[in-house]
């Protein structure tokens, strides 16, 4: 069940790793630091770049810096940029550490809750033999010390609990009290506009993590059978407990979105939310092909991802690319350069049905233009019909 909100606005539910007052104070300090860096320091760096570095580069080379990589080379030695980078990296590491301490303190309760969720509507189907893709094993994605998949206890849920609370602190609450803004943004910003009145019978959410974006589909399409897959068992166990706490009947399964194992033509709607940038070029192509295979005639594929580089200026691209190497997001930049429309056609979709558009999100931090790290209040949607 859901209850009141924490002081910072996150909706409390039974599965949430609720911080003590003093844990909340520490987490709030990191939240405040992150906001300060995004809202004041990043724009200050842009002003420095535009008023000092660009004129100097024009004087020396006859033109402004050509692209984000040149900008990175020019900004790297700057003491303000180095301090900004140091503060961003340390704030990210300390954020996860703080939330992990809080989650570990409550681990017995969370494990019991997850074990007891089996009676709730929906289901959980784990596959211990499923191989975790190398692109998730190679680094601690976004500096998250558990990764998505590591387990520290039998039937562990730590990574899921860490992700649920950590994402809220990371985003400064801008994904909503239930971190569900991306799911609702796709529903309201795309589905309700392009398919008003549609009632898909079976929905699949790929790369669901803890189900932040999955649960809105159970609310918008209450007659649908909603399935959600991820490769990470701790995420799925937590997702199951969280969905049960929220009263959402979701069928969770441990499957790889590149090869799900579901029969052909199993779903009317296949969606993902910020899954693609956590994979690889090869995996993206496989995910699109699998989406095509899984859709019934008339079905719809939607993959929501952060905006591509061609929608932002070079300095915003430079700030976005910071995360690629500094926040352990190896595919963060590459996915923004892909021709996803062409890749969807290669996957089998009729090119006439494939399109890409930007939809608004609830995120308040405005645009990559002013220093947001993830594209601000917009999200890229790749959509195609079977």
């Amino acid at each position, binding site marked *: 069940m859901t209850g009141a909100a924490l*002081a*910072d*606005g996150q909706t409390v539910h039974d599965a949430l790793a609720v*911080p003590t*007052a*003093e844990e*909340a*104070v*520490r987490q*709030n*300090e*990191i*939240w*405040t*630091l992150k*906001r*300060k*860096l995004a809202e*004041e*320091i990043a724009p*200050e760096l842009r002003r*420095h770049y535009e008023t000092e570095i660009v004129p100097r580069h024009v004087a020396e080379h006859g033109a402004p810096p050509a692209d984000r990589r040149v900008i990175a080379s020019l900004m790297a030695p700057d*003491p*303000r940029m*180095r*301090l900004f*980078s*140091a*503060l961003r*990296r*340390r*704030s990210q*590491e*300390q954020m996860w550490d*703080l939330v992990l301490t809080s989650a570990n303190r409550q681990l017995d309760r969370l494990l019991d809750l997850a074990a007891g969720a089996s009676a709730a509507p929906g289901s959980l189907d784990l596959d211990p033999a499923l191989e975790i893709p190398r692109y998730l094993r190679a*680094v*601690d994605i976004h*500096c998250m*010390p558990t990764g998505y998949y590591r387990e520290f206890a039998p039937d562990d849920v730590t990574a899921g609990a860490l992700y649920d609370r950590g994402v809220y602190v990371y985003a400064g*609450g801008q994904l909503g009290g239930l971190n569900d803004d991306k799911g609702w943004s796709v529903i309201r910003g795309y589905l309700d506009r392009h398919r008003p009145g549609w009632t898909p019978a079976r929905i699949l959410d790929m790369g669901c993590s803890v189900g932040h974006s999955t649960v809105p589909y159970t609310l918008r399409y209450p007659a649908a059978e909603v399935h959600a897959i991820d490769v990470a068992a701790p995420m799925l166990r937590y997702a199951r407990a969280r969905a049960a706490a929220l009263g959402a009947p979701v069928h969770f399964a441990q499957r790889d979105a590149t090869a799900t194992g579901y029969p052909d033509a199993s779903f009317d709607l296949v969606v993902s939310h910020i899954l693609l940038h956590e994979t690889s070029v090869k995996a993206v192509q496989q995910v699109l092909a699998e989406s095509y295979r899984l859709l019934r005639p008339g079905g719809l594929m939607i993959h929501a991802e952060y905006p591509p580089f061609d929608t932002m200026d070079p300095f915003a691209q430079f700030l976005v690319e910071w995360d690629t*190497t*500094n926040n*352990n997001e190896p595919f963060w930049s590459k996915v923004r350069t892909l021709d996803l429309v062409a890749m969807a056609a290669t996957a089998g979709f009729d090119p006439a049905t494939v399109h890409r558009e930007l939809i608004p999100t609830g995120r308040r931090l405005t645009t990559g233009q002013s220093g947001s790290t993830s594209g601000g209040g917009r999200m890229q949607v790749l959509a195609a019909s079977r």
Partner: protein
Amino acid sequence: MTTAPRYLGEPHADALLSGLLLLTQEVAVLRHRCAVLEAERDGRQPPSPDDSDLMPRLVDELFGRLGTTQGTTGKEDR
């Protein structure tokens, strides 16, 4: 686990910065404890855990020493 990169040129500067951030968090906790005790003494509601301007002031101070003129140190508007 991946090794954290170093950004600051001086020896141990990155580690010192980490310590400074941790210290700021503990100062915030101590301030919160004092505020809770004062609220109890005065019969008021306990203060919110997010009532702190320490990090913005720290950031302003750090960047100020690099010669920039940063914005206000005011309380965050949530």
